[in-house]
């Protein structure tokens, strides 16, 4: 039984990684799961300099999920390389670094800084965080802006680049095609859906940022639909995510056309979720006599 997949020339032992920002760089989940078992570890977003993020409250629960407005707090690329990449050196898994910025130059700075880091296998470009006001999201919501930033990053990146798309768009296929045409090696989707919660007793917003990105099982149908639409529209591989908590969820994305999948907010609900998804996919393949997971990619009829 083969669970190996390949994205932009990078081989994964299985198609399961984690949603950026839900797993740190693996350190905090190391005592729950064996990181060596993951197809890849995707880091929390990292910028050229440290970002303080948003005021609290930053997280709140909603029906079947949560809203977050962390605001991409991160220690900056220097600390990240010294501490997080060093930590990951000992592990036999792919490392995907999620890159964020406020201007194209910010992104390019991080991408160049990482170009000689051997431990970095792929770059995921976060152009879709809904919680940062400075405009990063605009790259993910306008096709022309997405084209421009993708081209520019592609010029400087040594590793394959995965463009992470926002679901807060009218037509996901337009964005997917723009990224592909601009040279993206892969896509990941969906980032969180912008949501809001109001405390009716205090008459205030539940989050200091007013809005937050929604994640969790509640958003899965929207994510599956967008992954399917994107997979129909482009040829580059897709990493599917949005509400994946179980192997059944992951398989929906794979059947819809995702080559790999990310477990996101489910890590908060069940710290063993990643491993359970991997084992559950294997069980499904065994039960259904699927020899190669590639036979499942986009196999919905």
């Amino acid at each position: 039984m083969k669970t190996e997949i390949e994205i932009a020339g990078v081989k994964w032992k299985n198609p399961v990684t984690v949603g950026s920002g839900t797993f740190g760089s693996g350190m905090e989940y190391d005592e729950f799961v064996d990181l060596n078992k993951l197809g890849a570890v995707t880091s929390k977003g990292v910028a050229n300099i440290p970002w303080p993020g948003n005021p609290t409250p930053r997280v709140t629960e909603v029906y079947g999920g949560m809203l977050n407005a962390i605001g991409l707090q991160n220690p900056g690329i220097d600390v990240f390389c010294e501490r997080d990449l060093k930590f990951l050196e000992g592990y036999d898994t792919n490392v995907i670094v999620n890159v964020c910025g406020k201007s194209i130059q910010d992104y390019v700075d991080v991408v160049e800084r990482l170009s000689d880091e051997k431990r970095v296998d792929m770059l995921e470009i976060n152009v879709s965080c809904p919680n940062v006001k400075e405009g990063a999201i605009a790259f993910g919501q306008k096709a022309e802006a997405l084209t421009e930033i993708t081209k520019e990053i592609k010029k400087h990146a040594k590793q394959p680049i995965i463009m992470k798309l926002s679901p807060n768009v009218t037509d996901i296929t337009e964005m997917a095609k723009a990224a592909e045409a601009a040279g993206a090696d892969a896509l990941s989707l969906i980032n969180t859906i912008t949501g809001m919660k109001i405390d009716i007793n205090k008459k205030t917003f539940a989050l200091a940022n007013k809005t937050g990105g929604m994640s969790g099982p509640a958003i899965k149908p929207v994510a599956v639909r967008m992954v399917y639409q994107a997979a129909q529209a482009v040829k580059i591989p897709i990493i599917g995510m949005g509400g994946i908590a179980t192997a059944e969820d992951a398989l929906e994305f794979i059947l819809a056309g995702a080559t790999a999948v990310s477990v996101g907010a489910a890590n908060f609900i069940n710290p063993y979720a990643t491993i359970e998804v991997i084992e559950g996919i294997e069980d499904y393949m065994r039960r259904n006599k699927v020899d190669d997971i590639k036979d499942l990619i986009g196999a919905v009829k």
Partner: protein
Amino acid sequence: MKKKTTAKILSQKSLAPGIYDMWLECDIAKDASAGQFIGVYPNDKSTLLPRPISICEADASKSALRLVYRVAGKGTAEFSQYKEGDGLDVLGVLGNGYDLSLLKGKRVMLMGGGIGIPPMLELAKELFCQNEQLSINEKSEIIIVVGYRDDKTFLKEDLEKYGKVYIASEDGSVGTKGNVMNAVEAEEIEADVICACGPMPMLRAIKKFASEKNIPAYISLEEHMACGVGACLGCVVKTKEVDHHSHVNNARICTDGPVFLAEDVEI
């Protein structure tokens, strides 16, 4: 080692309106100490995140944890319905508690306000047990100041086993009328160090008081949490100095705390 596990409810009863007292059997109990907390998962599939609840007592020999909590929302309302024998998923043990070694030979004032009282019980008990092992001048003096809304003085008898207990109540029905700071003033309580848990206005007052008296105050903070293990960066507090993890003066309450030296955090 932290883990998610299914605990068995050994008993549950109500201590006061909306306040519940639950004993859980779970093997993580052996790792628990004062000031730490666990995440408790609702079974209701609309409410998925674990609820952080502080440890009121830990009994390693019986693998048992005591939680005393207030019903504040759907999750805690659900927990309050469970009975002896029911199972409940928990994540723990989480966070860093109070460092007892710093309290040796000191006059320690334990201050708890409302649902911040329960962790003071485990702390009082641990200090009491530590005293048993120490020479006379290393022992801590245990002074407990707790603030209630009214005369429903839950955990008072338990606390009295370990130290002198002073009480404040908002409606003045028991002890000093007002909050714990009013009780400290009225009773002219002196201390070398403070350990506290309670609502933010109380913690701010304690920070100010400790600063004026030039004594350390270890305070336990609360914030909305998602992961509980330091990954999501949901529950941060501004720190005076750049902290080792975030590098942006944002310590994680769940992992770097929940107990902080008051002067280190901006609250």
